[in-house]
């Protein structure tokens, strides 16, 4: 017991938080920038998980390599969906508030469609495989390799994204658009293409997270919604439109979850939601919100 | 008689004083102008008076009662109304709905619908918007939106009206009309406290002017006194 175990728990929480952060950054792009509260985010995670599973079990393709195949496809799918659906909705909505409403409805529609197609293609059975299930031992603190990998991915992507947003012209345009679309347009950005790319990037991150999740947990076509909810909570907690905030929100959720699970598993969900609600009340526009 | 009197009004945002120790008063029936460069704390002072934000310390007496710390709707019910620097209309509602609402909930309260409707038409005519009853508010021109906001404030039956940059963004003809409107309002018995950047207009219409800078009152007096005041000239008029 004592200090080392607590540290162990905290690191374990951060590792799970890394995965949540990845999911949250993906949704952060779709909601914070493209203003689509995409409740079907989890379905893209599910698609990523099943793509990895199918490629691994049927063709023996390494789960990490499969990303090279599934990543671009899901990215393209996301981009296309924004182009054909959300861009159109955005134009026809009389205000941003109205667009947020209609886009939620449309993304619910997407959720139903994707989930049903997945059910038809893979059946409702629980599926799973084992990959990188081994552990790494840090002087007594033991972590699963696949969870560490997920954390590593989240950190790399988080940092890469941070520099992308801070340094590149396109990144700056995204940040501007997250604050104010008109200004971004004044900067000479093709706004619709950019929002489409953001949406595609969000879907890509979901697929990436799905790939990692399929190594850690069993998968079913119905697994998506809980992840969507985690992502939405993390994004809101971090502050809307703040990508770094989404990353932070995800980490906090994982950390808080693990700590309360250690202190009292029976009360963990109650404590989890109480902490979340209190954080919002203390910071009514998110942790990194204005 | 002093309708409004502030003593030692202070508001800090973090460590920054938005208004520091401001004393001021408005007499019944006066038109008082409030001037100062951007960030001088003018709108903050209005927000404090109307209850939008809570003060750090001080007192503001309205008709002999300390209203500091009261909520905006309570202050409104006591007979103090305001307009906003950036117009805050109920944009998707009709012009008449904007005013009806103020009639229903303003100082008089509990007005019957038909009375409110009559009052609404009268006010629209008064501010020069007759015939626009059914128009969606956000479809009006900026000048007309400002008029509507004044009419809405008047519909609450205020004894003191705070006008925050009524003339900003208006063309010279519209400025003249607005000046006329201010005088008309006063004529009907409402006291006016107004923030204005359009110097010519405010100098022409005010009985008295208060100048703020960095949250402090730097000068007070008749328009003539203010235009000749050395400090005001230096920091505000930039001479």
């Amino acid at each position, binding site marked *: *017991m004592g200090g080392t*175990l607590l540290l*162990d*728990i905290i690191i*374990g*929480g951060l590792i*799970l938080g890394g995965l949540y952060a990845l999911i949250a950054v993906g949704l952060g792009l779709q909601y914070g920038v493209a203003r689509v509260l995409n409740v079907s985010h989890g379905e893209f995670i599910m698609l990523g998980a099943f793509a990895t599973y199918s490629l691994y079990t049927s063709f023996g393709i390494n789960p990490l390599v499969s990303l090279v195949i599934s990543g671009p496809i899901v990215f393209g799918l996301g981009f296309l969906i924004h182009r054909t659906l959300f861009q159109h909705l955005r134009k026809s909505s009389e205000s941003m508030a109205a667009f947020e409403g209609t886009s939620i409805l449309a993304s619910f529609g997407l959720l139903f469609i994707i*989930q*049903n197609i997945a*059910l038809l293609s893979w*059946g*409702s*059975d*629980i*599926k*799973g*495989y*084992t990959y990188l*299930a*081994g*552990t790494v031992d840090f002087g007594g603190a*033991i*972590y*699963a390799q696949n969870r560490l990998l997920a954390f590593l991915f989240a950190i790399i992507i988080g940092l890469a994204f941070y520099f992308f947003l801070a340094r590149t012209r396109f990144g700056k345009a995204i940040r501007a658009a997250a604050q104010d679309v008109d200004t971004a347009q004044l900067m000479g950005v093709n706004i619709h293409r950019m929002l489409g790319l953001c949406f595609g990037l969000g879907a890509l991150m979901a697929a990436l997270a799905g790939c990692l999740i399929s190594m*850690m*947990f*069993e998968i*079913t076509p*119905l697994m998506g919604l*809980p992840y969507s909810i985690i992502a939405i909570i993390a994004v809101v907690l971090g502050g809307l439109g703040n990508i770094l905030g989404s990353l932070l929100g995800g980490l906090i959720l*994982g950390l808080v*979850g*693990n700590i309360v*699970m*250690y202190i009292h*598993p*029976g009360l*963990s*969900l109650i404590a989890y939601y109480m902490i979340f609600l209190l954080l919002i009340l203390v910071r009514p526009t998110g942790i990194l919100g204005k | 008689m002093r309708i409004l009197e502030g003593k030692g009004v202070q508001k800090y945002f973090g460590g920054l004083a938005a208004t520091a120790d401001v004393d001021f008063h408005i007499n019944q029936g006066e038109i008082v102008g409030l001037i100062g460069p951007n960030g001088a704390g003018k709108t903050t002072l209005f927000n404090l008076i109307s209850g939008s934000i809570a003060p750090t310390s001080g007192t503001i007496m309205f008709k002999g009662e300390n209203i500091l710390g009261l909520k905006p709707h309570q202050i409104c019910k006591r007979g103090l109304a305001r307009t906003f620097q950036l117009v805050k209309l109920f944009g998707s509602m009709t012009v008449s709905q904007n005013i009806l609402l103020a009639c229903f909930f303003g100082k008089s309260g509990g007005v019957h619908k038909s009375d409110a409707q009559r009052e609404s038409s009268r006010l629209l005519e008064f501010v020069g918007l007759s015939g626009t009853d059914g128009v969606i508010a956000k479809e009006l021109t900026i000048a007309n939106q400002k008029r509507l906001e004044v009419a809405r404030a008047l519909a609450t039956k205020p004894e003191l009206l705070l006008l925050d940059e009524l003339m900003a963004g208006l063309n010279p003809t519209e400025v003249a009309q607005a000046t006329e409107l201010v005088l008309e309002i006063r004529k009907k018995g409402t006291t006016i406290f107004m923030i204005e950047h359009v110097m010519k207009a405010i100098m022409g219409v005010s009985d008295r002017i208060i100048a703020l800078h960095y949250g402090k009152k730097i000068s007070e007096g008749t328009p003539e006194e203010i235009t000749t005041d050395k400090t005001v000239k230096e920091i505000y008029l930039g001479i």
Partner: protein
Amino acid sequence: MSGMIKQLRVVFILLAVLVVAFPLTGYCKDKILIGTAISLSGPYAPGAGMTQIPNYKMWVEEVNAKGGIYVKEYGKRLPVELIIYDDKSDIGTAVKLVEKLVLEDKVDLLLPPWGTAMHFAVGPVANKYGYPLIGPTISSEKLRKVAHKIPYFFGILNMPREQGAALVDLLVEFGIKKVALIYVADAYGIEWTAEVSPALKAKGIKAVIEQSYPLGAKDLSPLLKKIKAANVDALLGMSYPPDTFLITAQSMGLKLNPKLFYLGVGVAFPVYRDKFGAKAVEGVMGAGAWNPKLPYPGAKEYYDRHVKKWNKEPDRWGSAFAYASLQILEQAIEKTGTLDRKKLRDVIATETFPTVIGPVKFEGGFNIQAPGEIGQWQNGEFEVVAGKPKRTAKPIYPKPAWP
């Protein structure tokens, strides 16, 4: 004139409708209509898609290949037609669709939904309309309290009382003194704990950790680390499939190696063995026990047919029970020679039925024949290890360490 034509037309249409509708009224019975509202989507869908739906469909196919079920009152074999509705894993929808099956589709018989909660909701409704229902995926002590109010309902699966007792007997047999008892904060976990916890005390076995955890947890390692630190002889987890998989994966990672490793629903699923590998799960124990080696007529054949038809093994938990409940229904119809549900119910309640899980007999609405209570993975098969007389293999103890 045109008015008259119109009237004639109306009469004609009415006649046509009558002619078309007549056969549907059941006058000339040409099939047995069976309906079920079960989860094709939502959180219960994985369970339903594994344990029940494949068996329902397979049975219908088999029966119809024989030309149907012989019903004496009609003097011929009647083929079976199955209507499946999706209850979306939602109780309200389930209740409503069952009433639709009864009132609108006028089915002859009903098949149960998936899961304890659904059975509790649908059972009373079926009972209200007088439809016998044999529930293969309800395991609850609460059922005992209401069983007398719903005489048309039969529980065929193992109940926590017997299964929990069998588990504790196993612990006594191995001389285990110190255990950790964790349970999912849902009906299943609570009812199991309510049975097992006092039984442990009575036998002088100490539960040094007794702790619930929430459904849907994504990381249970903090709890498992506590258990590892407590150095117990046995881990008893009253778990649902998602947590069963999670606890297993994380115990492997943490090298948590108690001498006895028991988890609830999910261990008996073939996918459990396939995900982790037969070697890794060697010695893991779980709730439910059935395997094709059991000496019941048709058991092996059922297993083979299932594998052949669906290209996957039936789970070793409720699948065979689901199939058995269909066998019982079929036998009851043949025995009574009728589709009269009252008579069917009475026969089910009193007679003994040979099935793939052995000779089933209901007492007070509960099946007293269990093929086994607890199973253990040994060389890729889920061997029955408790109750003792039903063993298909000797239990492995202590469990080999994780690879």
